[in-house]
């Protein structure tokens, strides 16, 4: 409905016009704006604008006890919160010299891979929606929900599990959980052909995604791209294998790559990673029962816990790429500084801006989703 004071304006003299994607556009996750200048339907200029989301996590963390931050960090990335908890905990463990028990390490890997599965289902489900394939999106969201059920069972929370704590994890694995996780994996694996039929081998998708938002490996390295987006340009790099943490060096998995560097390749890498995550989880299910012992090392009373002075830079491979925490302690009961290096801070800003240039209007959403941009990681 037109407002009463609406007056028709004459068309501008050229074909150029500006368009705002977001901050509340269905094509974007979270409150994030992407402003593009178009000539006809071709992008001339693109600017990412993160100014709608700031919650000041890093500042907040400086005012909270070390342990209180465990409730805060998962909120930095809604779709993939577990790496945030683990990475923060790893940093404190490194500074404080805490020895995480073996069992806790395996439980952490289990959650990380569950979270990766959930995040990928969300990511390509979203991508499918950008090309009008809503069924894939609904399937993705529905199947992710089954993973969230297991998260709820394991951690007590569906999305923000708040389950990792410096020194280990907060609860042991419930009775029968591994069996239920195992059946879930069977189910998810059985779904993969359905997803392939409907989406990954669907020529509508393949043809639309091929060549869209393409970058070369050289460009990707220059722009600081990591994670599936980097692997989609053919570089076989994964923090889990190349800078291993927890027990990833004891696990058998492959690092899928593609060569296209485009929206298609990026989605296919994620699709292949689903299989690898299931593979890792099966190994965890097999090994975990034989790894006995505590789930957390002793930690001081959280209300009077001075982490020794020091600093640590810890990295994990999140579903979106390299996630890192730089944590500084001055020996106090709160962090002196926490810097969160979200993977999306590269591909949701500069890379997106560059890849959008010359693209067509209808592909912008595809580019954004194929990069799996998570705005809250950018705007912490």
């Amino acid at each position, binding site marked *: 409905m037109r407002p009463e004071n609406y007056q028709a304006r004459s068309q501008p003299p050229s074909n150029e016009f500006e368009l705002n994607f977001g901050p509340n556009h269905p094509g974007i996750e979270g409150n994030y704006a992407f402003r593009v200048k178009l000539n006809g339907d071709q992008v001339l200029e693109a600017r*990412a*604008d*993160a*100014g709608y989301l*700031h919650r*000041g996590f*890093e*500042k*907040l963390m400086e*005012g909270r*006890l070390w342990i209180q931050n465990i409730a805060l960090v998962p909120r930095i990335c809604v779709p993939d919160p577990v790496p945030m908890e683990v990475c923060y905990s790893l940093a404190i463990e490194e500074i404080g010299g805490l020895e995480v028990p073996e069992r806790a390490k395996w439980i952490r890997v289990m959650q990380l891979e569950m979270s990766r599965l959930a995040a990928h289902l969300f990511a390509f489900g979203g991508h499918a929606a950008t090309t009008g394939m809503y069924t894939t999106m609904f399937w993705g969201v529905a199947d992710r929900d089954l993973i969230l059920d297991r998260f709820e069972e394991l951690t007590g929370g569906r999305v923000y599990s708040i389950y990792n704590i410096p020194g280990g994890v907060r609860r042991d694995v419930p009775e029968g959980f591994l069996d239920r996780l195992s059946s879930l994996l069977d189910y998810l694996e059985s779904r993969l052909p359905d997803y392939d039929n409907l989406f990954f081998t669907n020529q509508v998708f393949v043809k639309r995604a091929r060549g869209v938002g393409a970058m070369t490996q050289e460009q990707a*390295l*220059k*722009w*600081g791209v*990591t994670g599936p987006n980097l692997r989609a340009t053919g*570089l076989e*790099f994964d923090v889990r294998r*190349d*800078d291993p943490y927890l027990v990833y060096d004891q696990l058998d998995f492959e690092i899928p790559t593609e060569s296209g560097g485009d929206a298609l390749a990026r989605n296919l890498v994620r699709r292949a990673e689903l299989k690898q995550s299931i593979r890792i989880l099966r190994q965890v299910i097999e090994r975990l029962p034989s790894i006995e012992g505590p789930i957390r090392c002793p930690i001081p009373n959280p*209300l009077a816990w001075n982490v020794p002075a020091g600093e640590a*830079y810890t*990295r994990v491979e999140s579903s979106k790429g*390299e996630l*890192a925490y*730089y944590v*500084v302690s001055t020996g106090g*009961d709160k962090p*002196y*500084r926490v*810097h969160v*290096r979200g993977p999306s*801070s*590269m591909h949701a*800003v*500069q890379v997106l801006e560059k890849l959008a240039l010359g693209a067509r209007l209808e592909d912008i959403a595809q580019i954004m989703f194929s990069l799996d941009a998570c705005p809250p990681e*950018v*705007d912490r």
Partner: protein
Amino acid sequence: MSKDLNIWLDDLLGDIENIQFKRKSSRRVRVDVGSEALPALLELLQGRASYVHLSAISCVDWIEDEEFELVYHVWSYETRSLVSAHTRIPREPGVYLSIYDLYQPAAFFERDIHEMFGVFFEGSPDMEKFILTEWDGPPPMRKEFDSEAFVNQHFEWEQYHPQWLKDLEEEGGGVTTRPEDIRL
């Protein structure tokens, strides 16, 4: 791999004065370097030692020392190791050189640090506001900015007064300690 790393790091660092390095683990090296030598160090690391990936630039406000610490985390895909190069610059005027020419991802981090700490990076492609679009206060990550005080000044807490509380107050009970009174 790590043995090689030692040898060439020694070679490399021999060229630079006023530098200390400390191996923290097999894949983590901390380097402390004067601010005048940092760009040269990074150039060496990137050009001669394959540290092509700038993982992050972190800034720490050492307000009591009147300094900012800048930490450049660079990763080598070949040697699979991460060097964190630490340098300090005076808090005032808080100006430093951009390393955008060496590492393009620096643009994001420098812009972020500029916005959050007020450090200006000369030669950085874009020092425009990004996250705090409508903010005209001090750079909030500086230690002197008290975000909790700001919040308390500008926002109201929800004032609840449910029936159960009224009943308790009638019996002589009621609120004794509000959460804001006991923050550790």
